[in-house]
């Protein structure tokens, strides 16, 4: 039945298309007979009518405009503000991706140093598909918790062994991806809290170095900053960089969670004189990041390459990857044992993505999720008997203390976060990281957008976030009944897959 107040959009648009022509005539007459001033409207409507004629009869690529004329524009206009409206008004507190408002709010509160407790129950739905931490009947006194200390490189007895003092580190984000202010605020915050920060693969870490925090130099497949003209390793450059006081470790990136198995391209338009200098690439030419290091074509050459970096840098050296095939990883570990070259750490990146821009299929469909990949890496290393010779870092959406604790229980020794720290810097999840239009001045190089990012203020927030995470880490650890993060194991986590696989729905342990 047709209701009396139905709005017939088709009829309305047809009326509107005729209406503007009638108005054009009306204003033309008024301009002629009443006052010439009416011709301002005549001209405006003339332009609209001409545009509308083009939309309806002159173009073929927009069906809505061809069928309904200018009224169809309202659809495009309203649609264009959809993401903002959904985020402000309509999306529930728990449904946004990659991070829901509840998750983001926790980071914001920690960064601002305000109480992040909640009341009247959790906002999450519990249906036995989520992973939970298991507490103990016998929590440990907080004073009995050992200070967090993970030594990287100790197994090789290096003089340069690095002691990690916080369970969380700032993950790889390069200058280039982030603007200058964002990098400096992160580095200053890391310095204040005494945490380590990864430089990302963006070449010589000029802005990271400015604040004097401990750095993990990341070498991507294009080896920005330590490459020769052909993109091979330039040992002298790496040695010079590793000799700097601030650089504590070297991370060789084999792949990353945002686009495992895929390289990248730095288009020549983005290569400014400064970027060219920092990355060691020519001006005016596209630069390819290959999908793998040119030196690494199989397990043997990869392990040789790791050994070479260890020798040249003299620093604790590790590899980062998102796990794909476990058989390949096991073969690589066996090769490590054969060559007696074990990396000092392994960073397991979850396929949950990250800050890197990537083709959608690579982001969505490749690589193992963090927790699964982490367990497999940990298990294979244990089975091959090299687990105690290295340290595992984990990264992939670990922005809350609970998630970090789960990663630590499933095999990680230290956790990494990138986006957690972007949120601490004031990220509002506008999802424009790859467009140079970041509204809060983080992933942009435009001066007027970076203006709002005060380095001192945001550095404090970064430090607050690190300290709050560490504080919560101690709380959570005490509840598990363990006095050191080293003692955490799979028994501290409830893994729902087991319950789901059980016919009775009961958990088997």
């Amino acid at each position, binding site marked *: 039945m047709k209701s009396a107040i139905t709005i017939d959009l088709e009829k309305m648009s047809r009326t509107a298309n005729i209406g503007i022509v009638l108005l054009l005539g009306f204003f*033309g007459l008024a301009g002629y007979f009443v006052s*010439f*001033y009416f*011709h301002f409207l*005549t*001209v405006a409507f003339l*332009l609209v009518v001409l*545009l509308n004629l083009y939309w309806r009869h002159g173009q073929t690529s927009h069906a809505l405009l061809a069928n309904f004329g200018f009224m169809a524009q309202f659809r495009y206009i309203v649609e264009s503000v959809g993401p903002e409206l959904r985020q402000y008004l309509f999306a529930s507190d728990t449904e946004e991706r990659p991070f829901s408002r509840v998750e983001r709010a926790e980071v914001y509160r920690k960064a601002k140093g305000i109480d992040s407790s909640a009341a009247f129950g959790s906002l999450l739905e519990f249906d036995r598909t989520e992973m939970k931490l298991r507490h103990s009947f016998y929590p440990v006194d907080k004073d009995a918790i050992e200070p967090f200390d993970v030594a990287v490189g100790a197994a090789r007895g290096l003089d340069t062994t690095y002691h990690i003092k916080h369970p969380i580190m700032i993950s790889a984000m390069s200058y280039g991806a982030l603007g200058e202010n964002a990098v400096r605020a992160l580095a200053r915050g890391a310095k204040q809290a005494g945490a380590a920060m990864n430089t990302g693969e963006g070449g010589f870490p000029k802005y990271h170095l400015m604040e004097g925090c401990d750095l993990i130099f990341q070498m991507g497949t294009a080896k920005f900053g330590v490459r020769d003209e052909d993109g091979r390793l330039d040992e002298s450059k790496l040695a010079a960089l590793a000799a700097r006081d601030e650089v504590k470790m070297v991370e060789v990136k084999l792949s990353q969670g945002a686009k495992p198995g895929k390289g990248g391209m730095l288009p020549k338009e983005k290569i400014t004189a400064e970027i060219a200098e920092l990355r060691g690439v020519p001006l005016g030419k596209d630069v390819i990041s290959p999908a793998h290091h040119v030196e690494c074509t199989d397990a043997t050459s990869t392990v040789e390459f790791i050994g070479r970096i260890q020798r040249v840098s003299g620093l604790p050296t590790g590899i980062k990857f998102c796990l794909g095939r476990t058989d390949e990883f096991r073969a690589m570990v066996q090769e490590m044992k054969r060559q007696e070259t074990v990396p000092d750490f392994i960073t397991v990146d979850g396929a949950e993505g990250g800050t890197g821009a990537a083709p959608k299929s690579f982001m969505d469909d490749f690589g193992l999720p963090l927790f699964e990949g982490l367990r497999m890496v940990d298990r294979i290393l244990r089975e091959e008997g090299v687990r105690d010779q290295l340290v595992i870092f984990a990264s992939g959406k670990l922005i809350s203390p609970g998630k970090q604790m789960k990663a630590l229980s499933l095999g990680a020794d230290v956790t990494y976060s990138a986006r957690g720290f972007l949120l601490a810097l004031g990220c509002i999840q506008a999802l424009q990281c790859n467009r140079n239009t970041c509204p809060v001045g983080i992933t942009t190089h435009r001066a007027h957008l970076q203006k709002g990012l005060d380095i001192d203020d945001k550095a404090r927030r970064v430090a607050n976030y690190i300290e709050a995470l560490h504080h919560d880490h101690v709380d959570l650890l005490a509840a598990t009944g363990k006095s050191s993060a080293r003692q955490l194991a799979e028994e501290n986590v409830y893994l729902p897959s087991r319950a789901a696989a059980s016919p009775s729905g009961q958990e088997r342990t």
Partner: protein
Amino acid sequence: MTHPKLTYAAQGIAAMLLLLAAGMKFMGQPRSVAIFVSLDMDPAGRYLIAVIELAAALLLLSPFAALGSVVAVGVMCGAIIAHVTRLGLVVNNDGGMLVGMLVVVLLCASYVLFSRRKEIPLVGDTL
């Protein structure tokens, strides 16, 4: 179909003539006063049009040239309406000079409008 150099040249010519026209109106040159008197718009309408012409000229010389060309085309359409309906093609015995200039600006601005149509705010994507 369009050439960047030609577009810049058209922007320059249109902007220069618009500045000239706006200047004459601002300074109250007798001929333009006479025109606006016969349109019953002097002096407010004269200044208003001068301001719009000035804005169009400056926009044509800025990165927002597409917007400037829309404004310029609009003003010129208005001027054509005035000449056709009230003033006639020959004003003050100038042998059609004024209308000639007007047509030049209209053609230049139209060319800019066409070659930069993708840059027009809001609707550019559909053109």
